[in-house]
């Protein structure tokens, strides 16, 4: 018994004794290793070359948002207008749910249009929304100019969103409009009632309707509407002929078959500068001559890309936007497949002309780890064609303002040297 207890105590002591504690404060140089961590900071002023910009990666109709803006500028006004089209039910509609007999659609008593505002600036006051009827011929090639006329003479409704949100229960008992605020997802769901005059169900057009939206506000009128699952939806309240008797029918809500936006002024043509952002979205490629001394025998601990704006960043003042630097799997110019695994980002403030710094440490570390990786940086907006913002940087041919890389790296530690 005593021997067993002694063995147990011995085992516990042995386990406790095996706890190592070797870390001690260094008192250098006497009691520190001779080798030290050596940090080098270098500015690569001529390592970025053969840079260029390309436009058209994401077009307006491909954007997951419809952008609406009305922002007067120094020379022109940024005017963004969502446009969307809903196909109808055709000329006839089923009378009963128990058989397949149909009757001609006589018209609509009314309709209710649901819109998701997925981005808005809470500093915007007196935000007004104007709904226009557009030709049903609108498509992905529709331009701002081609729908300028209906946006002038086909006004259906005007809704003051701030007023509606201030109503009890966010419902306007006069107009029938209502709003629901989703604070969790920062969305406002507008439900606009369209009367018989506004909701014209034209059987000859199969009930297809198209609408456009303009917005206005005291300041900073810039919002975004959702698409697809959060896109416009139209609920018709139809009158259908049933053996000479008009009966009311409420079919399911229809989503938009086309949802896009038009805007003016159009983006400035690309020039020698490095453009990033805008609609259609623009990307820039920067090819980096990555020094072997860094690539092969050093650990990069910080790398910063410096870009000097050639002009102030454009866009909606409230909509600062994020641009990201990414690498590519292969350098095929404009069609280079982007490596989505790593990115480094920075925020661009509209109107700013300060030098932009992007920390690209992750990317350069990846280059150092894989010598087969192309040393090409792609600058692109984080959310392509979801903001009007665009910035243009001086290219490498502008010697005084060219893009530069500042790299901080650590040389290989002299392991094994006493």
């Amino acid at each position, binding site marked *: 018994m005593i021997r067993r207890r002694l063995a147990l105590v011995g085992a516990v002591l042995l386990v406790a*004794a*095996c*706890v*190592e*504690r*070797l*870390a*001690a*404060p*260094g*008192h*250098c*140089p*006497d*009691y*520190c*290793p*001779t*080798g030290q*961590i050596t*940090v080098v*900071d270098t500015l690569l002023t001529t390592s970025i070359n053969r840079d260029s910009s390309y436009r058209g990666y994401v077009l307006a109709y491909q954007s997951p948002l419809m952008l609406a803006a009305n922002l007067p500028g120094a020379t022109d006004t940024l005017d963004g207008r969502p446009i969307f089209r809903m196909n109808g039910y055709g000329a006839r509609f089923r009378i009963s749910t128990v058989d397949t007999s149909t009757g001609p659609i006589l018209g609509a008593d009314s309709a209710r249009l649901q819109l998701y505002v997925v981005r808005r600036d809470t500093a915007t006051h007196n935000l007004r929304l104007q709904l226009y009827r557009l030709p049903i011929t609108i498509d992905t090639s529709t331009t701002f100019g081609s729908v300028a006329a209906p946006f002038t003479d086909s006004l259906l409704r005007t809704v003051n969103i701030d007023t509606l949100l201030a109503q009890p229960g966010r419902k306007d008992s006069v107009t029938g409009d209502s709003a629901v605020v989703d604070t969790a997802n920062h969305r406002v769901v507008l439900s606009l009632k369209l009367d018989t005059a506004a909701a014209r169900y034209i059987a000859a057009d199969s009930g297809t309707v198209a609408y456009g939206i303009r917005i206005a506000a005291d300041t900073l009128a810039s919002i975004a509407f959702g698409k697809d699952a959060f896109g416009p939806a139209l609920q018709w309240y139809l009158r259908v002929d049933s053996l000479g008797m008009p009966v009311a029918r409420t079919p399911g809500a229809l989503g938009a078959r086309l949802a896009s936006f038009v805007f003016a002024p159009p983006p400035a043509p690309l020039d020698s500068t490095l453009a990033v952002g805008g609609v259609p979205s623009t990307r820039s490629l920067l090819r980096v001559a990555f020094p072997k001394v860094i690539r092969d025998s050093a*650990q*990069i*601990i*910080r790398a910063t890309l410096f870009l000097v704006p050639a002009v102030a960043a454009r866009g909606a003042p409230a909509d600062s936007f994020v641009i990201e630097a990414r690498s590519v799997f292969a350098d095929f110019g404009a069609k280079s497949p982007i490596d989505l695994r790593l990115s480094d980002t920075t925020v661009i403030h509209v109107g700013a002309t300060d030098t932009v710094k992007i*920390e690209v*440490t992750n990317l350069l*570390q990846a280059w150092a780890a894989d010598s087969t990786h192309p040393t090409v940086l792609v600058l692109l907006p984080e959310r392509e064609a979801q903001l009007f913002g665009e910035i243009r940087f001086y290219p490498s041919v502008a010697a005084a303002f060219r893009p530069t890389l*500042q790299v*901080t790296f*650590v040389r*290989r*530690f*002299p*392991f*094994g*040297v*006493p």
Partner: protein
Amino acid sequence: MTHRTGWIIAVLLVGPALTGGAMAVAQDSQFGIRGLGTPGRWESVRSRTTGGAFGPFDPLSPLMEASLADIGQLTATAAGGTSNRDVLVGGTATSLRATRFPLMGVAGPVARRLAVSVGFTTYLDKSWDVTLRDSFMLRGVLQRYTDEITSDGSVADIRIAAASRLTRRIALGAGLHVLAGSTRMTAERQFDDSTFHRVQQSAEVRYDGLGVSGSVLIGVAPGLTIAGWARRDNRLRAKVADTTSAVTDLPLMAGGGVLFAPSPSARLGASVAWRSWSKAGADAFDTWTWSAGAEFGSRRMPIRLGARGGQMPFGPGTEAPTEVAGSLGTGRAFAQGRALIDLGLERLERRGGGLTERVWTVLVGITVRP
């Protein structure tokens, strides 16, 4: 237990060392950080608790080979120790702890006048961990950072030795030493400013070297024995990823001792050693070490005590750091002397260059004679 079984146990004990898988480490010291490391003590627990004075005469201590001649039967031994070390430097004190297994070996007669031994001990301990807080200007801003540089490992001395008692008074021995080992080294820097990524580098440094040694044991008179030994190692080569990063000359060593046994229950010993560590580079010194100790009582359960002192080979400044230690221990034989457990306690103090280390070490040794 058969002779064959005994050798199997011995191989199992020593095998890891021969394949490089062993972690043989001695007692660490901050003095070894800037130098090659902290030299190991080539002593069994029995010898160490006599201050090391019995080292030249103890067949289970890998200091000398000639003493193997009297081993008599196949014997395997291993030792372990736990150290609690207080480091005082620059007005700060740090408590450190480490557990090491600095010795393992097997020895036995293979012919009437020939005994051999194989085993390992620590040649240099290279385990340490240094943290440092500092700052420097980087990108025009004072950047504060914390460094941690660590080394974990050692250089083992794998010895193959043979000894023969030529006459009743004289025994000779010789050994071949293979120095092998590795350290896992890391260098890390964490900036306070998180935009600078963490510096993290590591490498495995492998070491190799060769050495030879010879020794003699002379019975001067009944109960009085003297010993002498010498050893020459060539160099310690450090390789990182198959590239030689350093080649350091290793010292010539020599020493001697005297053992006096006035009665079967009393043994007194003393020894001295010299090592030319100064050839190992800057901040290295030749060292003299001495020890004196005694063992009283029956061999079944003796009482041992000892003292030692001398110089440390590495340290800052112009003078070698010094160390002094006192030790106390005992042993217990079991199974008609076929198994022995040795226990020891050592108090050690090292001084030099503004640094003082005080160490308590608990030692445990196991010896099996199958």
